[in-house]
């Protein structure tokens, strides 16, 4: 019925009296790359599992590729690729055998399997490693194999749950270039991640907290609309004491580590480079303050951090 890749309407999941997903609604259009962010336990995996028909919603409904997730789950699964957070590989099998096994499960026709398997191994940079036993591969290599498996049946819609967790920085970038290619070819991608640099690659981002979807927008719009004020880098000699000192300054919304220096969000109109500099110097720190552009990490902290407006 719908032209949408994913349509979610007041979807809810309760475990006993605990609400893991709390009445979320959103849409994903074909060809979009949508990132799904949120603190640990905020309901991302639970959402994805409901969309795949692996978990029954307590209330609300969802359609994936026009099929109802509760009544038509069997129709959805062959059309989508799913990479789960802790993907179960068969440790005793080789990389190639694992892929072969899943190609079979996903119903890739026998005659096409060999070529298809080769193609996805190439795509994720695993060519030549087919004979290695999966159990002996490091975390990052296992992740790549899991992605290859999710792609082997040419799905038009991909659900990737923290696909790059534990993957090295170069491999992560290659991974995202791959996602880029898939999206260029028309695939729709729904991907959760805790890496804010990866979130930048997404067309739109959903931000979950406590089971609720707090925002869903482009990275640029989120950076423009969700912060309470300007952001600053502070290069300072004693990190933790300076962090504690800054946190106690009026008009300072949030302070954190950023690389080897500190980063702060202040409330609109409350601080300038000069006031921050002189306040800290007054407390005996030697510090250099720079105004910065907001980042998605700032957005995340502002929406889901401990200073974020309470949900109730």
């Amino acid at each position: 019925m719908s032209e949408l890749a994913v349509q979610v309407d007041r979807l809810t999941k309760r475990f006993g009296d605990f609400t893991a997903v709390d009445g979320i609604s959103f849409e994903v259009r074909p060809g979009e790359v949508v990132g799904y962010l949120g603190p640990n336990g905020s309901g991302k995996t639970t959402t994805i599992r409901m969309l795949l028909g692996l978990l029954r919603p307590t209330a609300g409904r969802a359609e994936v590729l026009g099929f109802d997730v509760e009544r038509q789950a069997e129709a959805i699964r062959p059309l989508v690729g799913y990479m789960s957070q802790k993907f179960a590989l068969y440790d005793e099998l080789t990389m190639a055998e694992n892929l072969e096994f899943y190609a079979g499960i996903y119903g890739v026709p026998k005659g096409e399997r060999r070529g298809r398997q080769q193609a996805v191994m190439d795509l994720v940079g695993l060519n030549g490693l087919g004979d290695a036993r999966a159990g002996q591969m490091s975390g990052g290599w296992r992740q790549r194999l899991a992605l290859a498996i999710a792609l082997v049946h040419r799905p038009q819609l991909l659900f990737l749950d923290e696909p790059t967790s534990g993957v090295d920085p170069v491999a992560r970038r290659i991974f995202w270039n791959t996602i880029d290619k898939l999206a260029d070819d028309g695939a729709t991608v729904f991907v959760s991640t805790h890496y804010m640099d990866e979130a930048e690659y997404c067309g739109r981002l959903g931000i979950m907290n406590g089971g609720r979807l707090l925002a869903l927008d482009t990275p640029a719009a989120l950076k423009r609309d969700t912060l309470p004020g300007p952001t600053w880098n502070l290069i300072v000699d004693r990190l933790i004491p300076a962090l504690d000192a800054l946190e106690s300054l009026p008009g300072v919304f949030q302070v954190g580590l950023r690389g080897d220096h500190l980063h702060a969000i202040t409330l609109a109109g409350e601080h300038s480079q000069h006031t921050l500099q002189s306040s800290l110097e007054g407390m005996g720190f030697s510090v250099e303050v720079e105004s910065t552009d907001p980042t998605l990490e700032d957005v995340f902290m502002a929406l889901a951090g401990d200073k974020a407006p309470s949900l109730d």
Partner: protein
Amino acid sequence: MALLEAIGLTKRFGSLVAVDDVSLVVQPGEAYGLVGPDGAGKTTVMRLLVGALSLDAGSVAILGQDLARHPEQARSSVGYLPQRFSLYHDLTVGENLAFFGSVRGIDRKTLTGRAAELLAFVGLTGFENRLAGVLSGGMKQKLGLACALVHRPSLLLLDEPTSGVDPITRQDFWQLIIRLLGDGAGVVVSTPYMDEAIRCSILGFMAAGRILTTGAPRSLLAPLAGRVLELRAEPRALAHQLCQADPDVEDVAQFGELLHLRLRGAAVFSGLQDGQATQLRLSSALAAGGVQVLGLRAIAPSLEDVFIATLQATALEARHE
């Protein structure tokens, strides 16, 4: 006395040399960061340091205690968080912590107070009675960390402790690490996050079982100063191709919409100030080749640039050997 002194660690699996003559020393207050590509051998080093694997050569001393000869004493001051931490899925959060505490010989009374403190620190207060098996991925990781800290170890071995951990908890986690370092603890940590690596006192870049370079983050970044350019250009594929072929460009990498170029050392230091001349020349060469340059500027090198440059240099050497 050094907290950790590991000399010449070597480990073979059949014909594969997984760890090849690796040495590292950690003093109180220091964090040693192990970074490197997937499969470099970081986890194997961690497992050798904690004695979970036996050494083929080399030695490990923790607070002066030799790990091979006095494993009990050496290990008593170590907290280890493996990459794939095994919790008891049929025990609750609180029971898991109690279990790991009792293994470490902590009495029940001490444990009760400490458990509350640790759970608050990792953000799991209120989840004491939930079964570990139904925690979210990141929550399991946090519980693992709490278990590794339960006996207040002075040396922490953390194997990708923040993989799968959300940015807020990552903040809290590192703030705690820095506080522990301030109290004189020492840490060996592996991480795929370059913004975490830069906080370490010393970094070791590992690949193929060896430590390729080691040093303070600042000193590792220094050789790349002025040599990394950010290019925004259309069409990107053509720009990529032209840059790759340029004699002054050592490497091109795609970062989403942007290209990062690494200039050869000579292109910067023998030219006019700060490689300005090279930038101008590159700009016009690209334009002449049919590329529209929307922006080209020098940016501060990141550890990721160091990471890539180190790997490429080693690959080249290997080819010339």
